């Protein structure tokens, strides 16, 4: 590498470097800092820009302005109990730091405190941002801060300091990985904040279910949650994520059981097989349900499962949740259902749907066996030539089942589920509606599955012979509407190109999910999980060690590349082995020492080394004398070979 003086140096006033560092770490914080404080920073910036001399008065007024800005920024939250909230407290810290840094910067004097402030600010910004973009930005920040320090220490030597920064950065990688994985972690409920705007409120399934025209479904692509299964993905017809259960038909909408009936009830399994373990990242819903695969076997920490296997958390979900859960895919339960619940699941108003009631009664009388009765009802629904559409004609809500089954004959999941549940009740089978999400295998990669808002679903559960059975009510539709909304949600019309894009997008989502799980939300739990896996599975341990070794090798290669500037010249490459051999003997070229001077220095100590004299001559002739022929190169190579052998012996 030639070190050209032209681009080698930049002015490295330590103050400028510190300004650069502060600017870098302040960028993400600008999203957090409130307007009065931003104005204050603008004020300080303009003072600096116009090179205002920092008199005592200026400093005093700036400090005053800072306190005012602080007060205005935290107005309303400004009491001691408010400070117990972590984010507010950190925000206050940032403001104080900004004021202090500004004052110190105005004096144009560097003290130790000003020097460490960029690192403090960077650390504080981590309280607010936990997204992948922040992860990348932090990496950039660390590198640039390191580089700025080196730039300062190396008198503004740009290329050298960059190279050194890269060297340090790369050589720290294995330690970073090992420390990251194994440094003892405090088990701590992970608070996720994310960039502002990252966590808009996600709609989706909601505690009640509307049947009227207001319930027009928007097939949104927004992601509700991401699921990764420990083992294989369950089959397509097992991907029912249970949300809330609805019992009470209010005509235009359905409601859950009154609170008192479900309180303090415990889930009771009669059998639970085919357990599946999975991790879910749930985006804020502003509701209290967690969505777990039918049927939740073990609740995540802090959540409760009731007798209906509905899982709830005590507080509304307004931050991203990460939880691990276990579900049973083959199960039997229901005998322990309390009479009150059975009663609620059987309640109907016979007057509202006379035609359906007559039909249901007919079926009930013909099939005394409950299972057969349920099958017959399903058969009857199928025979009605119902159409699945996302844009149905509104039902007559006073006679919703009649209207659905005999007149309109179209609807989407809620209509199918509601009608079938009421129909079952009219036939004497206790039934209820379940709302939640149904996973679509098209949105999966390996064992990773994305649930989108359009996957919101409703289905029915029937109590047959003392066991609740899931009934996929939309399966009764004999045709699917061709209208645009329905079609696009069915993805029938996808072209090859958009399919590919979708696949790529899905893979990107998968990578993002993996990063989030294993880096951003790496926790005590994950650490334990990793260690457990290593203990149980020697193959995993081997793979892990291999990965570490590979990483080390990569780092070594990177270091070699960075440490040895590539030779710009063929003859310099030829000389390399010789220089390495001489280095081993303790002869290192000094700064500015020419090759001739260096070799002469060696010859002074080893005058008998005739090859070196010859190498000196050849090198000079090739590089400066225009004798750049292959023959000369070969002779030089030969001499170098001899010289290295000799120096190896010496």
């Amino acid at each position, binding site marked *: 590498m030639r070190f050209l003086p032209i681009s080698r140096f930049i002015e490295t006033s330590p103050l400028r470097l510190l300004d650069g560092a502060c600017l870098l770490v302040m960028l993400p914080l600008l999203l957090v800092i409130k307007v009065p404080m931003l104005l204050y920073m603008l004020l300080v910036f303009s003072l600096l820009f116009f090179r205002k001399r920092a008199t005592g008065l200026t400093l005093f007024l700036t400090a005053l302005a800072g306190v005012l800005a602080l007060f205005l920024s935290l107005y309303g939250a400004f009491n001691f109990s408010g400070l117990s909230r972590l984010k507010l407290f950190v925000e206050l810290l940032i403001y104080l730091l900004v004021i202090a840094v500004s004052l110190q910067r105005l004096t144009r004097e560097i003290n130790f405190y000003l020097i460490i402030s960029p690192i403090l600010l960077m650390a504080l910004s981590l309280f607010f941002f936990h997204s992948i973009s922040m992860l990348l930005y932090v990496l950039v920040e660390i590198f640039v801060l390191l580089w700025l320090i080196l730039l300062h220490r190396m008198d503004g030597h740009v290329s050298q300091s960059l190279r050194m920064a890269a060297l340090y950065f790369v050589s720290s990688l294995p330690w970073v990985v090992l420390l990251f994985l194994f440094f003892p972690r405090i088990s701590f409920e992970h608070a996720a904040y994310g960039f502002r705007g990252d966590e808009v409120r996600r709609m989706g399934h909601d505690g009640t279910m509307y049947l009227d025209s207001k319930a027009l479904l928007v097939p949104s692509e927004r992601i509700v949650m991401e699921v990764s299964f420990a083992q294989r993905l369950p089959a397509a017809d097992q991907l029912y994520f249970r949300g809330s259960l609805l019992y009470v038909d209010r005509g235009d909408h359905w409601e859950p059981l009154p609170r008192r009936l479900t309180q303090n009830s415990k889930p009771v399994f009669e059998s639970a097989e085919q357990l599946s373990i999975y991790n879910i990242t749930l985006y804020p819903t502003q509701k209290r349900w967690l969505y777990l695969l039918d049927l939740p076997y073990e609740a995540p920490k802090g959540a409760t499962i009731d007798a209906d296997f509905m899982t709830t958390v005590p507080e509304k979900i307004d931050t991203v949740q990460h939880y691990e859960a276990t579900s049973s895919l083959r199960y039997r339960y229901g005998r322990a259902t309390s009479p009150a619940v059975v009663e609620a699941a059987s309640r109907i108003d016979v007057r509202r749907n006379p035609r359906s009631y007559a039909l249901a009664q007919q079926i009930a009388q013909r099939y005394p066996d409950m299972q057969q009765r349920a099958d017959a009802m399903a058969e009857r629904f199928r025979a009605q030539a119902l159409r699945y559409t996302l844009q149905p004609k509104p039902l007559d809500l006073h006679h919703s089942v009649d209207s659905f089954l005999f007149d309109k004959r179209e609807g989407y999941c809620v209509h199918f589920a509601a009608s079938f549940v009421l129909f079952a009740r009219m036939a004497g089978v206790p039934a209820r509606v379940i709302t939640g999400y149904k996973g679509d295998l098209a949105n999966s990669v390996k064992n990773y599955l994305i649930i989108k808002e359009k996957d919101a679903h409703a289905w029915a559960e029937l109590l047959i012979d003392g066991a609740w059975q899931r009934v996929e009510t939309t399966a009764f539709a004999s045709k699917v509407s061709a209208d645009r909304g329905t079609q696009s949600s069915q993805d029938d019309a996808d072209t090859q190109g958009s399919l590919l894009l979708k696949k790529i997008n899905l893979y990107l989502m998968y990578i993002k999910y993996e990063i989030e799980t294993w880096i951003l939300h790496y926790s005590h739990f994950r650490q334990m999980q990793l260690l457990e896996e290593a203990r149980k599975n020697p193959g995993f341990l081997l793979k892990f060690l291999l990965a570490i070794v590979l990483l080390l090798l990569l780092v070594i290669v990177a270091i070699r590349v960075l440490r040895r500037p590539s030779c710009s010249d063929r003859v310099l490459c030829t000389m390399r082995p010789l220089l390495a051999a001489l280095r081993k003997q303790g002869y290192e070229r000094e700064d500015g020492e*020419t090759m*001739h001077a260096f070799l002469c220095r060696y010859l002074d100590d080893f005058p008998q080394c005739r090859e070196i004299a010859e190498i000196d001559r050849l090198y000079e002739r090739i590089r*400066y004398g225009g004798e750049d022929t292959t023959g000369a190169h070969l002779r030089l190579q030969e001499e170098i070979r001899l010289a290295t052998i000799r120096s190896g012996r010496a």
Partner: protein
Amino acid sequence: MKQKLASEFTSVVDAIEQHLVGKREAITLMLAAYFAGGHVLLEDIPGVGKTTLAKSFARVMGLDFGRIQFTSDLLPSDIVGVSYFSQKEGDFFLRKGAIFSQFLLADEINRAMPKTQSALLEAMEEHHVTIDGASYVLPEPFFVIGTQNPHEEVGTFPLPHSQLDRFLCSFGIGYPDKAAERRVLLGLEITAQQSDTPLISPERIENLMQQAREVVMRDAMLDYLQDVIALTRESGWFDYGLSTRGALALSAMLKSWAMLHGRDYATPDDLQAVAPAVCSHRLRFSEGVTTAERIHAILFSNTRSDA
């Protein structure tokens, strides 16, 4: 730095060294400047052998020697000569000054008035003088050694930077080392004094000057030279960088140096050998003293001839 002088010049340097023991480097620099066709400024305290060097150099090279002792009342006409009217002949005649010699020793150059100084320096640059409107060509090769005592301040007129630039290089001689001094003290070096005969013929001198001009600088060398020149201009260590004339001086000098060492191509070692002499009167550090050693250290510890 160990570079081997070509055998032809070893005898020349040896001959001069008899009078100036242990100062081979200064002698070689002088030779290099001579063959590069430039002039030399010797800066040192009195009594270290400036005049001795000049005299013996002229004698060994077989040059006709002129000398001017600069004083504050020296007039330009004292240097270049004067045209006078001969009543006998009834015509103007020129009485040539000391400058009409192949080798001029201008002693204590900073003692003369600026007007007188510039008369000399112009002649050095142009290689001809103008007396009463008539132009006279100076003998070729024309070589000036100016000396000045850097430490004397009273009654001197320091040469401005623009005038200093006319000297190809500038160096001191320095005290002799202990062994050399002992020889001087014993009077050993005087024995061969009068036996000097020219070692190089005028034709050969012409020839060698041509040869020095023809030394080649390859790309690798030019890159290095330009890096060094750029460093003087852009690093911020110096008040001002090397001018283009300075750069040309550097290349002429290093080529001549390469020739003296028996090569028809230049190497970084040549540059490192001559750069302090060429630069020390052309550059000034923004901070701290300007010495040849410091210039060498800064220029070459921050540039790499190869890596």
